[in-house]
């Protein structure tokens, strides 16, 4: 691919000129070759900076401008996304860059055929995270790296912004081309929602989690209750069954010919009683404790989500405070930054631990239920053996006595 590199490559030229060497390594931590690979593929893409509103913007006319080496048939492309027009926003709290994201589409799930929204880097990060979470083993195209050192003037360097813009443009297009990602609800909202909407949609992730925890809590409590009820009923059944054996034994005392058979039945019933007792004990000792733990887990999850909400609320409160306060701004900004970090950390930590917890829960409950089912099979197998041996004893009795007992 290196042969067809066009002067649009951004890698070597610009970066070395505008940014001090020690930082360039951090920003573009790639091999020269990888660099070329990454950027050369997209040479056929229309350069975002040359794209402006005055150009023909119908989807059909864009087909000629976007040529992909991919297998994708150009005529079937029904969504076009561009990232351009970076703008700086200065608010009382912070300064950041937003990019214009324009979407043109003929897809029916979109309410309209054209959308224009402004997005900041954070939003792209959010989108990437959502896609990765929803599809842990699919490959999401990378985003340009986050610039770790905030507040540095270099962030607002034109070249840096341009580089980033192009990368963001490529990122979105990769998503749009992806057979699964492009139909993601989060992607659609990213492209179409007003900023307020996007913010509340982002929060929705945790709302969804909350809803799940609520429902899970109910369901696991129900399972726990049902299991306890089963244990109760089994115990009561056992109490009644315990009287059967002795009754047969009592009967055998009045009989002569029948005595042996009745004693055998009594013995068999007693053995089944023992097995039933064991089975109840197993339920009590194995399944019930696990279920009970997950009932408690649900409460823990609720508390965790509550605490995360508190951290978010704290951040939002500080944000507002900074907007209204006139004095102590620097200290408040510091506080705010810390609050923002705490929130980000909390959210990320929760998200990954959530995934971990779900895996563990699934494993625990699966093995507990499998174990119970196995135990029940074993219970019935043992009882089956008891009654089959009774039948055998009857058969040998009949044959042994020589009497044709069944005539």
């Amino acid at each position: 691919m290196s042969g067809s590199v066009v002067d649009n490559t951004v890698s070597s030229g610009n970066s070395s000129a505008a940014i001090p060497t020690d930082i360039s390594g951090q920003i573009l931590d790639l091999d020269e070759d990888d660099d070329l690979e990454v950027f050369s593929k997209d040479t056929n893409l229309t350069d975002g900076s040359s794209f402006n509103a005055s150009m023909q913007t119908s989807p059909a006319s864009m087909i000629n401008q976007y040529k992909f080496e991919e297998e994708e048939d150009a005529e079937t492309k029904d969504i076009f996304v561009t990232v351009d027009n970076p703008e700086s926003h200065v608010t009382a709290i912070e300064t950041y860059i937003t990019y214009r994201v324009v979407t043109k589409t003929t897809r029916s799930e979109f309410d309209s055929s054209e959308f224009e929204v402004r997005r900041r880097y954070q939003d792209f990060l959010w989108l990437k995270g959502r896609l990765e979470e929803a599809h842990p083993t699919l490959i999401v195209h990378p985003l340009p790296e986050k610039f770790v050192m905030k507040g540095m003037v270099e962030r607002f360097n034109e070249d840096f912004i341009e580089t980033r813009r192009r990368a963001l443009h490529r990122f979105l297009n990769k998503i749009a081309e992806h057979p699964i990602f492009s139909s993601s609800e989060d992607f659609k909202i990213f492209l179409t929602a007003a900023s307020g909407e996007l913010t509340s949609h982002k929060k929705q992730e945790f709302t969804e989690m909350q809803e799940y925890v609520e429902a899970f809590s109910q369901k696991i409590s129900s399972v726990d209750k049902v299991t306890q009820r089963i244990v109760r009923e089994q115990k009561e059944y056992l109490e009644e069954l315990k009287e059967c054996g002795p009754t047969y034994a009592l009967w055998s005392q009045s009989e002569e010919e029948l005595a042996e058979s009745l004693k055998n039945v009594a013995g068999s019933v007693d053995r089944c009683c023992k097995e039933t007792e064991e089975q109840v004990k197993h339920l009590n000792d194995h399944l019930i404790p696990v279920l009970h733990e997950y009932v408690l887990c649900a409460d823990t999850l609720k508390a965790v989500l509550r605490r995360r909400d508190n951290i978010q609320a704290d951040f939002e409160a500080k944000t507002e405070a900074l907007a209204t306060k006139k004095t102590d701004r620097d200290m408040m900004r510091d506080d705010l930054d810390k609050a923002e970090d705490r929130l980000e950390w909390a959210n990320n930590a929760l998200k990954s631990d959530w995934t971990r917890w779900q895996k563990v829960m699934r494993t625990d409950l699966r093995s507990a239920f499998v174990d119970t089912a196995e135990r029940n099979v074993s219970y019935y197998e043992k009882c089956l053996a008891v009654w089959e041996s009774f039948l055998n004893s009857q058969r040998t009795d009949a044959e042994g006595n020589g009497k044709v007992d069944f005539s």
Partner: protein
Amino acid sequence: MADSGSEDIAVIGNTDLTPSESENNLKNTMVETGTSLLKKMEISVAEAEKRTGKNAVNMQETYTVYLIETRPVDAASEGTNPVPDSLWRRYSEFELLRNYLLVTYPFLVVPPLPEKRAEFVWHKLSADNMDPDFVERRRVGLENFLLRVASHPVLSSDKIFYSFLTEENGWKETVFETGFQAKADSRLKALNATFRVKNPDKRFADMKHYGDELQSVISQLLRVRARAADRLYGVYKVHGNYGRVFSEWSAIEKEMGDGLQSAGHHMDAYAASVDDILEEEEHYADQLKEYLFYADALRAVCRKHELTQYELEMAALDLTSKKQQREELATGTIRTFSLKGMTSKLFGQETPEQREAKLNMLETQIEEGEELVKERNAECDEFVKSAWVDIERFKEQKDHDLREALISYAIMQISMCKKGIQVWNNAKECFSKM
């Protein structure tokens, strides 16, 4: 009908025997004991129907009638299938028949009827006589009763029984014409009376005691079994809740959803399976109930024997006392205290003519008394002989039938276990896919 030998093995070896199959085994057994009646006639209670009509006090009532079908044995084996003769009878007519047999053959253990009202029911079963399940079980019980009578060496040749099976109209009148009602009343009185026999026959006393024990222990068994059935029903049905909860839970899960959902279905199947299981067990309970009622019939025979013995003893006692009076009168000695003796002492001796008259009367009485004693003795002997033959027959029948019942109970338990194994293995597979 296969030969007895291979049938035995089939009964035990084939653990998949259904209740109707084991019932057939019982019927085949009865047929094979080969009374002359059963050799020429096939009997069945084929159907049950609800009827409404006016009763004795002209009030509207609903009752059930049962269709008794009879058909000649050879016809079936010849390949032709003629329409069976049939007639409808209601439960009260069966009762009438049985009462007649009880009175006419007090020395026989008369087969019992299925219960009049559902007893020992566990909560799911209806105690309602009109309930279709109860009616069906009663139909089976009535057929069983007819076959028992038809396979009894003595009862099967009874004419009233034969006409019960074959003559729809006028049968009731025929029964009453036998005058058994009068005997029925006195029999009832006798059975309920308390009297003490001087020399009880040990065999009969033991038999009566056995009857008491059998009745007591079977009652207890039926009670315990009904309670256990109730509880078992609860255990199975609660598992149905798993089905519902798993289904709801699967809706909020991604990877676990399918496994949970399908496991839930198996839990529903498990819960539903208890209905069939307990229906089969009801059949076993019916077999026990028959012998519960048979115990009563056995006790009745023993009581009747006691009565016969008592009447003999009374007659003998009376004869002895009369003989004593004659002796006293003849020899003039008063050995026993009697009012006559007292009055004669107080008011003087009687005239020789008076004494002569009294002696003659006593002689007649003694003669009659001796006849009576001889009669009663013969009656008693006859009773003992016939009763004991039938009791032996009954014992053998009971041992055989109850053993079969226990075997069929074991088969039922095995079937229940097999179902359980299947369901939980299926559930395990679903859970492992969670």
